[in-house]
């Protein structure tokens, strides 16, 4: 019965990625190579982030919210954005349209993130007898993360790959990108300082990811229209 639960939670965590790949034209254009390359770039980025975190952060004595440490974490979070930049611009992709490139990169990135952060706890924890909601929440978080990564990749492709953008939209694009990049810090602030319970935090993540997805979708189509 508990392996059943593990399979359920694994489907919730990784299923959407597979569904996204097969449902959208990504599968038709065979963009799996891009996804894999993006995943590899993510792994490298994660490694660099870990090294920076270990070097610059102190072990917190108490569980309070330390603004300087959080600021440090935000800066290190920007390494993520740098990694995405690298994946979007520097890698050689096969001839695929802008539209599909950011989707493929975002998908590979989010999938690697889920596997790295969520597979091990799932394997070890969800197979036990004891039932907790933890792994279901983790799965929901993975879904939210997928949407947010796709939005960030869309905004990233807008910022770096598209040369002519309507002047008025540019600051909005940058503001949204900044918001998305700092989303992990925001959630940790909510969890630690305001002491939101996990269901509330996951609800917030889902809601905000959908909101940001909508906004970036609007921005993207607006820029596309002006092309």
């Amino acid at each position, binding site marked *: *019965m508990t392996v*059943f*639960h593990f399979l*359920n939670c694994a*489907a*919730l965590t990784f*299923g*959407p990625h597979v*569904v*996204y790949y*097969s*449902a*959208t*034209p990504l599968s*038709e*254009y065979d963009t799996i190579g891009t996804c894999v390359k993006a995943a590899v770039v993510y792994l490298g980025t994660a490694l660099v982030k870990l090294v920076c975190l270990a070097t610059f952060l102190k072990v917190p004595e108490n569980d309070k919210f330390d603004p300087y440490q959080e600021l440090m974490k935000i800066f290190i979070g920007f390494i993520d954005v740098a990694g995405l930049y690298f994946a979007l611009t520097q890698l050689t992709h096969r001839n695929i349209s802008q539209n599909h490139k950011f989707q493929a990169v975002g998908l590979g990135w989010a999938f690697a993130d889920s596997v790295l952060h969520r597979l091990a706890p799932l394997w070890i924890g969800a197979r*036990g*007898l*004891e*039932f*907790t*909601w933890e792994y*279901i929440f983790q799965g929901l978080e993975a879904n939210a993360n997928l949407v947010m990564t796709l939005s960030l990749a869309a905004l990233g492709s807008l910022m770096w790959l598209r040369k002519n953008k309507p002047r008025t939209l540019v600051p909005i694009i940058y503001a949204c990108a900044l918001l998305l990049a700092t989303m992990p810090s925001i959630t940790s602030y909510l969890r630690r300082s305001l002491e939101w319970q996990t269901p509330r935090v996951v609800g917030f993540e*889902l809601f905000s990811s*959908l909101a940001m997805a*909508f906004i970036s*979708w609007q921005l993207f189509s607006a820029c596309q229209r002006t092309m």
Partner: protein
Amino acid sequence: MSISSSSGDVLASALAVLLVLLACVELGDAAAAVSVYRLIQYDLAGAPLGSRAASVNHHAAALPLPAGADLSRSALVAPLLDLPLAFLREYLVQKKHLGALLILLPEKFNDKDAAANNDGNGQLKGALAELEKLLLHEEVPYPVYFAFQDDNFDNLLADIRKIASSGQPASATTGGYKLVVSSPEPKKVASPIISNIQGWLPGLKGEGDTEQLPTIAIVANYDTFGAAPELSVGSDSNGSGAVALLEIARLFSRLYSNPKTRGKYNLLFGLTSGGPYNYNGTNKWLRSFDQRVRESIDHAICLNSVGSWNDELWMHVSKPPENPYIKQIFEDFSDVSKEMGVSVGIKHKKINVSNPRVAWEHEQFSRFRVTALSLSELSSPPEFLESTGGLYDTRESADAESITRTVRVVSESLARHIYGLKGRNFDVFAENSSLAINPRYIQSWLDLLSRTPRVAPFLQKNDPFIAALKKELSEHTADVYVQSDVLDGMFTFYDATKANLNVYQVASVTFDLLFLLVLGSYLIVLFSFLVITTRGLDDLINIFRRPPSRKVKGA
């Protein structure tokens, strides 16, 4: 395009289903791990008795039971006072099956600092005694464990009752709590060893004394037997006797250390084992002696349960009280006790040689034709496997003052006998003298014994406790020797006396299936949504039509 509204719909319906799921399984505590102690498992002359199984993997149930509950697949968790014995007896007699039984003992037994209040105690003691008697003499085919009741268990019981009151007994299909004890299969203890520890205080042999000096033996058994071997600390039965013996040995070793005050009697101290089993150990110990040594024993004083009396101590004999030896010893005791303000009564019980039941330790001596008596607070002989250090017999049931009083009675009488002080009215072991009885010594040894479960088959030959007793005795006496022997074949014991209980909160099968359904529909909805938004509705329909024509590759 109404992506946001359709996604909003999806989210709303998902939340609704989530709430339904939440109603099925309550958020509870994380898994807890508790130490539990198993009911003893033993064979008596081939008849299996006690709890015959050890591992538990059942759903938890609590009293009051919902109607029509099938307990053969549940583990019943019951606090001691809530468990009606009639119910248990009915289950045992009718050979109805329980998955497992977990009896929760009140915490007071584990808390040495709690002051014993007498009003609740009587009921508790009675309930425990009855429960022990029932469980010890029956064959229980399922595991029975004891644990101490604390807040976790209170919460657990409340939760189980809440789930049960919703009408569904705990089982695999409805979720609830699961109790898991993963214990190896209980194996027989191969050769249970009983170790008797003896020490001598040799008396003063005068010039020209060719004959052997007479010996006075002071004996007490130190082992216990109870429903839960890991909890059998037997403070009163017979930790009190063993501690009294150690103090008497200490006092007389001070007297005997100086040749001027050494008496003309040898003193033999024996800490015997195998008491609950008809004093089998004492028998083997006496048998191991040379016949001349045995014959030199003038008389033996056996101490049994001397830890909780106030005014009256009993002297049990097998020779008639008119016997001159017995009479003289009794007079010594009476004189001393009268001076102390307590009384010693005498009880005579004839030995039936054909009856294998040995109720008092002195009867083993009598069978070897050695004059002996047993000093005890009990006025009647205990039944087989009763008063041997059961669940109730913890530190609170014995007190150092009673043991001190016993030590005074025995040692003063002994001193008057050895040194011929009859009629002279003074205390050898007076207060504030260098020979004063040391209550702190008694207390610290009583504390130690009350922390050490001492069921003989589970004490190895090289157990640190036996080594500690041996070391202590050698501080006071000479020629300390540990005589080990195998317990008689009538008893067979099984191990696996202690285990760890894990309490898990499990979700029901229906929950998992429901979740799978929700997940499946979510993924299907997501798939359709993505296909419609990126490729168009026609493509979605085309997937399901699956015509024999090949898939159109995008140009």
